[in-house]
């Protein structure tokens, strides 16, 4: 596996991630393309997050949904994926499915119309909805369980939920970016939505989820992805 990473970095921009016998292409956007299944996996879109503050009097820029959908559209165009699986927290809250502005709603419908679309329920958006595609609590493809929140003792899970980010510190410089993180049993995607924050994978919510010795981290750079070694990771 280390070799695989080495090959791909050396070759160029597309380091494949190998997990439980499958190869995935991580995207700069935070999406994960599963070539063998022609499937795009995305986690934590948090659509309609900004507008969800309006009721409490904070009129935040309502552009996040459009921007996230734009991101999704270009990933789909690039990969040609015929199936999309959203790993939960696709909407910042259940009500979000009814507050989409006209243009955003149309854009989402267009995206869904052309392909298989699966909404996995998250803690922010547990309720099923009728925006097109199918809604379900979790799903299984090949030997993998696709779910929102990781559970501790299951082998072969792909999930989102915690919005992982890593900070590397090297030669007196440090940089913090969202990241893919996995070990032999669990793969967690970074949050995909433009309005999402992130949590350092060394922070307490991650405790016990990953085997530190097997930790593989792929950080999202501006123009490429960076697989980094666990020993350079710091908190904060």
């Amino acid at each position, binding site marked *: 596996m280390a070799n695989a990473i080495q090959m791909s970095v050396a070759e160029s921009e597309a380091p494949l991630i190998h997990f439980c016998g499958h190869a995935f292409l991580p995207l700069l956007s935070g999406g994960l393309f599963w070539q063998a299944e022609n499937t795009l996996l995305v986690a934590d879109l948090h659509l309609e997050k900004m507008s969800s503050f309006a009721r409490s009097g904070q*009129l935040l820029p309502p552009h996040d949904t459009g921007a996230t959908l734009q991101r999704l559209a270009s990933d789909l165009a690039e990969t040609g994926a015929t199936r999309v699986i959203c790993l939960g927290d696709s909407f910042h809250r259940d009500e979000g499915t009814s507050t989409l502005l006209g243009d955003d709603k149309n854009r989402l419908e267009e995206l869904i119309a052309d392909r298989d679309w699966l909404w996995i329920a998250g803690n922010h958006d547990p309720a099923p909805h009728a925006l097109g595609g199918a809604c379900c609590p979790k799903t299984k493809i090949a030997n993998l369980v696709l779910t929102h929140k990781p559970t501790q003792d299951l082998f072969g899970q792909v999930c989102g939920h915690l919005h992982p980010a890593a900070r590397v510190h090297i030669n007196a410089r440090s940089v913090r970016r969202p990241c893919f993180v996995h070990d032999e049993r669990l793969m967690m995607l970074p949050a995909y939505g433009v309005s999402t924050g992130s949590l350092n994978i060394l922070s307490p919510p991650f405790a016990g989820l990953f085997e530190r010795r097997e930790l593989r981290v792929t950080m999202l750079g*501006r123009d490429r992805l*960076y697989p980094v070694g666990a020993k350079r990771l710091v908190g904060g």
Partner: protein
Amino acid sequence: MSELPDKIQDWFSDRGWQMRDHQRRVLEVSSAGHSALLIAPTGAGKTLAGFLPTLAHHATQKHDGLHTLYISPLKALAVDVARNLTDPIGEMGLDIRVETRTGDTPSNRRRRQRYDPPDILLTTPEQLALLISHPDAHRMFDSLKRLVLDELHALVTSKRGELLSLGISRLARLAPQMQITALSATIARPETLRDWIAAPVAPQTTELLEMAGGAQPEVSILASKDRLPWAGHSASYAVPDLYEIIKNHGTSLLFVNTRSQAEMLFQALWAANDDDLSIALHHGSLDVAQRRRVESAMTRGDLRAVVCTSTLDLGIDWGDVDLVIQIGAPKGASRMLQRIGRANHTLDTPSKALFVPSNRFEVLECEAALEAVHRGVQDSEDPVEGGMDVLAQHVLGMACATEFETKELFGEIITAWPYRNLSQARFERVLEFAATGGYALKAYERYAKLRRTPEGKWRIANAGIARQYRLNAGTIIAEPMVRVRLTRSMERRPGRPSTPRGGRVLGEMEEYFFSQMRVGDTFLFGGETLSFQGMRENEAFVARTQAKDPKIPSYMGGKFPLSTYLAERVRAILGSPDEWHKLPKQVSEWLSLQGHVSLLPGRDNLLVETFPRADKSYLVCYPFEGRLAHQTMGMLLTRRLERLRARPLGFVASDYALVIWGLGDMSMMIRNGQLSLDELFSEEMLGDDLEEWLDESSLMRRTFRNCAMIAGLIERRHPGKEKTGRQITMNSDLIYDVLYAHEPDHILIEATRRDASRGLLDIERLGECLRRIRRNIVHKPLLRISPLAVPLMLEIGKEPIFGEGRESAMAEAADELIREATGS
């Protein structure tokens, strides 16, 4: 009516006092029905002058309702002035009710003050904003005769001043008969401040009353026998001298520029305190109760010395301070004059002050400041132009008070000096923002905060908006802070995560400070060495420790940049070797050596040195434009050098100079024409490079956070729940990114850009600098480091290196992983 009413005349005579000239002038101007700006040095009885017309009026006539509103920048000052007024009023036998109103005033009294106001109300700009946002504000203010603005020079250079100016524009409408008497320390351009006051009360005449300074202060620079450090800010070399000086004076105030310097100096003085002198510490992070204890001990005359930061720049009269000591860079001449004024609050005896440079460059700055003080040069900042974020807050507040027509409120607002040039179109954009967020996408019509009435007036959508406004009003935005709580040191027991338990709160510190700490790290706070034990929610737990050599809190450069005037003088001293005899020998030798091995920076040129060191190439330049402008310059130059393939790695900026280092040989690149310094330093860097850099700059995000909170886009407080700083920071960064990407012309992005360019980025200053040095760059390639470069080179490693967010850190970590995997 310059004759005093008998009651007051008797009061003066009983004490053997006479009305001072400027006090009489204020009285005359006031009885002529004019407003006035009184400029007088500290100790001149300015505050009494401000109130004399009010006292005189009450001595002869009856007045119903609020007569005089007094506004000061500090709550403590308002409280102190109330005390100082109450005594004379009692002694004169006048029937005047004086009350204060601050955030600490109980809510029942605040409510009562609105329907039954005192004769004189003493308050702050924030409270004024709240008072005029009530629908019944006209009832409270229609009797108002006088507005007294204290320490106005300190307010008008900040957003608090912008808000105050808007508040005054409303007061002037509620009480057209109102006269303003403003009090200010000596400033560079008094006419501008006079205009600031005159604008809202026009066509009333506003007179400028300038009172000549008192006795010339006696200022000197510490002549220490010890070695002057090349760099650093601790002034620890001077501690033995300082201790002797404290011993030989009654009470000394020791001003330092940052809290960490205050901590270090306090610690060092106590280590030398064999005589057990009462030396105290005062800075903004210490618990309020602790600060009040120090202040009252000071007033009682119980202290020999107080080590303090700018927290004691303004404020209550200390009584007998014999000596003011400025440790470290003075930064500005006006600032120093005001600080020096803290010694001896009487006019006729000279104030005594001592400058203590903490490194060699600061010697030059102290020399320049000393000369400026002797010549009475002023370099204070001018009042600022009004920001749209503050305006948005005011507009919402005005809608809470009463419904308004666009034109009518616009007409009122442009009587505030900072907004005199506001166009109606911009004002309407601010209105749109306050109503629905001002987005191109009309997403929030149903959540609108302001709605149009059938007659086309604006009003708030519901009463909840007013409650929310009152919780969030004001322009003082604190950095996210955490409480520092004392706990016992915890033994780490395997398998049992220990939870820190709470003890006493020692004070507050910026959250970012703890974000860089690991458990067990030690630091100085409140004069003790503490070890960090962990964070829980909003609290940092710390334990006392005996550890030596505490980690120094990261040096946050003082808030104030080196003034343009002092910078110019420092360059002039450097460029005139015949002036060096005034300098300590160590310093003049240092400069002579620089002249031998390299060149000296001139008054109008820019010296750029390049030299190799270890395996890197260094470029050092000496613009003397202040740390912020240098940081921005560093960011922009680094980008340009990257494009020119000089492979820059990082830079460090001080108030005086900037060093950039990289892998490419910059001396060679300049020699063979690959790198043109004229092009490198061309003003064009403020074009595209600046734009690109702003895209990713965390400074813009930090500035945005303030603007967004002031404008009411993000709430600081919501009824029922307090947001922690951490949550706000995270959200505001995301909001900024989304807004910047999609509506770069949004009114708040404009406001952010404007604030950043005069604040954290200091682009204005950088622009002036680049124009000054155009085609005037002197390059000196060297084989090794120059004497003048040494101080800055010593900062490398101590200062945070810029380059955060650069991808190379990830690339290096990734390469390392590859090497590890391949065993190479």
